[in-house]
C-alpha cells in the first residue's frame, strides 16, 4: 500500500480576539491509495478544519502553526499558493456538505464542470465536455447530456451531490476529502451517494477522507476510522476493531448513542455535558469532564499509545462487550 497522504503533528490554530482557538491540535494519520478513512467527531471537533488545512484553505485569523502534511511524499503544509492551486481540484478534491450551496446558482452544470477541467489541463472544450458527460454517467445520472445543460436549481439535492461528486472525480485526483457529503440528504439518497462514492474509489483507486458525525455512515463505508475530540484524534484503527470493540470512552459513548433496532424501547445513551469551549479546554484529558471512567491519572494529558493494533489517547481503555452497529 502506498501512502497518499501523511499528516503528522498537524496544528491549526485560530488567533481570535478572545484568544487562541486550537481547532486542530496535533493530528496524525495516513491515508493509503484506495483507502477510505472515516474522520468522525461532533461539531467543532476540528474535522473540517483538518480537511481545509490539507487543501491550504485556512484563512486568517487561522493558520497552520506546526506539523507536516505530506502528499505523495511532498510537503504541502504552508506551501506557496501557486503550488497548492495546482493540487486543488486536480490531485486533491473536495466534496462539501450542502450541494445546494456549492454549485454556483447562475452557471449551468456544464460550465462549472468544464471549468474545473480547463483550470488544470490544456484540452479542448469538446474533450472537457465529453469527460464531464462521462463523469456524470459514472455517478448514476441518467441522460447526462441533458443534465449538463441544467442549472443547479433544476436538480434535486441528490442529483446535485452526484454532480459535485462527479466534479470531484473529474481530474482523477489521488485524494478526495468529503466533508459530510450526505448530511443534507434523505436517508435513501444518502445510501445511493455512499454507494456511488464507494464504487468510484474502488474503481479509480482514489484515497478518500470521509468527514462525518454519523458513525452509521462510516461503519458501512470506511476501511479505517479516526475519532476526533476537541482538535485531537482520540482513537484510530481498523473499522471493525473500533466499531465492534471501541476502547476510548468517547467512542463508546458515540456508538452507544446511535439508535439501533436491538435497543428499541430503551433509553438512548447520551454523553453527558457538552463539547468543551475551545478557548478554555480542561487541563489534562479534554474529554475528562464528560468521561465516566475518569481517574486521577486523567489530570494529565493522555499521550498516544498503541493498544490492540490501534492508536489511542486514553489512560483507561474500556473493555466493553461487543457493540451492535
Amino acid at each position: 500500500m502506498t501512502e497518499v497522504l501523511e499528516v503528522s503533528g498537524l496544528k491549526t490554530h485560530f488567533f481570535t480576539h478572545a484568544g487562541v482557538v486550537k481547532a486542530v491540535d496535533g493530528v496524525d494519520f495516513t491515508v493509503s491509495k484506495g483507502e477510505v478513512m472515516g474522520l468522525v467527531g461532533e461539531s467543532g471537533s476540528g474535522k473540517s478544519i483538518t480537511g481545509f488545512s490539507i487543501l491550504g484553505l485556512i484563512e486568517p485569523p487561522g493558520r497552520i502553526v506546526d506539523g507536516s502534511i505530506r502528499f505523495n511524499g511532498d510537503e504541502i503544509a504552508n506551501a506557496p499558493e501557486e503550488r497548492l492551486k495546482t493540487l486543488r481540484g486536480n490531485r486533491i478534491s473536495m466534496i462539501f456538505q450542502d450541494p445546494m450551496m456549492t454549485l454556483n446558482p447562475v452557471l449551468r452544470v456544464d460550465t462549472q464542470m468544464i471549468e474545473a477541467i480547463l483550470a488544470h489541463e490544456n484540452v479542448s472544450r469538446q474533450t472537457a465536455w465529453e469527460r464531464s458527460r462521462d463523469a456524470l454517467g459514472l455517478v448514476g445520472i441518467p441522460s447526462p447530456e441533458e443534465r449538463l445543460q441544467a442549472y443547479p436549481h433544476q436538480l434535486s439535492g441528490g442529483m446535485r451531490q452526484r454532480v459535485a461528486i462527479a466534479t470531484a472525480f473529474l481530474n482523477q485526483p489521488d485524494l478526495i476529502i468529503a466533508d459530510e457529503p450526505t448530511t443534507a440528504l434523505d436517508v435513501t439518497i444518502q445510501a445511493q451517494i455512499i454507494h456511488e462514492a464507494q464504487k468510484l474509489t474502488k474503481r479509480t483507486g482514489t484515497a478518500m477522507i470521509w468527514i462525518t458525525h454519523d458513525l452509521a455512515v462510516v461503519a458501512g463505508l470506511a476501511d479505517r476510522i479516526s475519532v476526533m475530540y476537541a482538535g485531537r484524534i482520540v482513537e484510530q484503527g481498523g473499522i471493525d476493531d473500533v466499531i465492534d470493540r471501541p476502547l476510548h470512552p468517547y467512542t463508546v459513548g458515540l456508538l452507544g448513542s446511535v439508535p439501533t433496532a436491538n435497543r428499541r424501547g430503551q433509553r438512548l445513551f447520551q454523553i453527558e455535558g457538552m463539547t468543551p469551549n475551545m478557548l478554555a479546554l480542561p487541563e489534562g484529558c479534554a474529554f475528562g469532564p464528560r468521561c465516566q471512567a475518569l481517574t486521577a491519572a486523567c489530570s494529565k494529558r493522555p499521550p498516544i499509545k498503541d493498544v490492540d493494533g490501534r492508536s489511542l489517547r486514553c489512560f483507561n481503555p474500556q473493555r466493553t462487550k461487543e457493540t451492535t452497529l
Partner: protein
Amino acid sequence: MTDTVTDHSLTTAKSPKVETPFQRFRAEFFESRIATAALGIFLIIVLLAILAPWITPQNPYDLGQVSVMDGRLPPGSEAFDGYTMWLGSDGSGRDLYSAILYGLRISLTVGLASGVIALLIGMAIGLVAAYAGGRTEAFIMRIVDLQLSFPASLVALMMVAALGKGVDKIILALVIAQWAYYARTVRATALVERGKEYVEAAQCLGISRSRIVFRHILPNCMAPLIVVGTVQTASAISLEATLSFLGVGLPQTEPSIGVLIANGFEYMLSGRYWISVFPGVALLMTVVSINLVGDHLRDVLNPRLKR
C-alpha cells in the same frame, strides 16, 4: 441497490426544454400588470424619441423651420407652415410636440449613457474593494462615503459648473455624481457572495482568482445592480432636467426636457400653462415608468421577498 438507481425527481424534471434563470425571471416580471404597463409606456417613449425626426412636423433645432410668428400658441392651433400644433408652441415658436420628442432623445441618451458608464465604473471599483479588502477597501469606501454625504444634485451642479455646457460634459458630471451608488451596491453584494460556499468550492477546484471574481461572483451580483441601475438611470434623467432647468445643463439651442420646462416657467402665471406642463408630464411619465419597472425588478430579484 444497483447502478441504475434513479431519483424520482428525474421524471419531474425530465422536460427537454431547460428553463434558464432569465426565463423564470421574465415570467415572474410579467405577472405584475403595473410593471408590464410601465415597461410598455417606457418602451413607447423610447420608440417615439428614436423616431422623432420622422414623426414630428418640425425639427426644433433647425432655426429655419422655427418661426417666431408661431410663439406661445395654445394647443391645437395651426402653425404658420400649416400643420396643427397639438400641444401648442413655446416662446420661440417651437412646436411643443416636436420639441418634447427631440428633448426626450437628449434626456434618454444622457440618462442611459451616464447610467451605463457609472455602472461599469462603480462595478469595477466595488469589486476591487470587496476582493482586495484591507486598506484598499477602506480607502475606496471612505471616498464613496464622502461622496454620498453630498446630495447627487449638488455634486452634479459643481461638476457642470467646472466642466461647462454640452451633452458630453453633462454625462461626465452625472457619472461622477452617481458611480458611488453602484460601487457601494456591488461591494456589499460581492462581500456576501464571497462568503458563500460555492466560492469556497470553486477555490477547492483550483480555479483562478480573477475567474472566481468575474465568472462566479459578478453574475451573482447582477440582481441588485440591475435594480440600482434602473433607479439611478431615472434619477440621472431627472438630474439632467434639474441642471438644464437651472440653466447650467444643455444650451437653449438644443433644448432638453429641462430646458423646455424652464422656458415655459415665466409664462405659467399668465395662463400659458402648456409650455411647461406638457414637457413636465413627459418627464414625469418617463421617470415614473422607469421607477415602477425598477421597483418591480427589486421585488422579483430579491430572494427575501420570494413568494
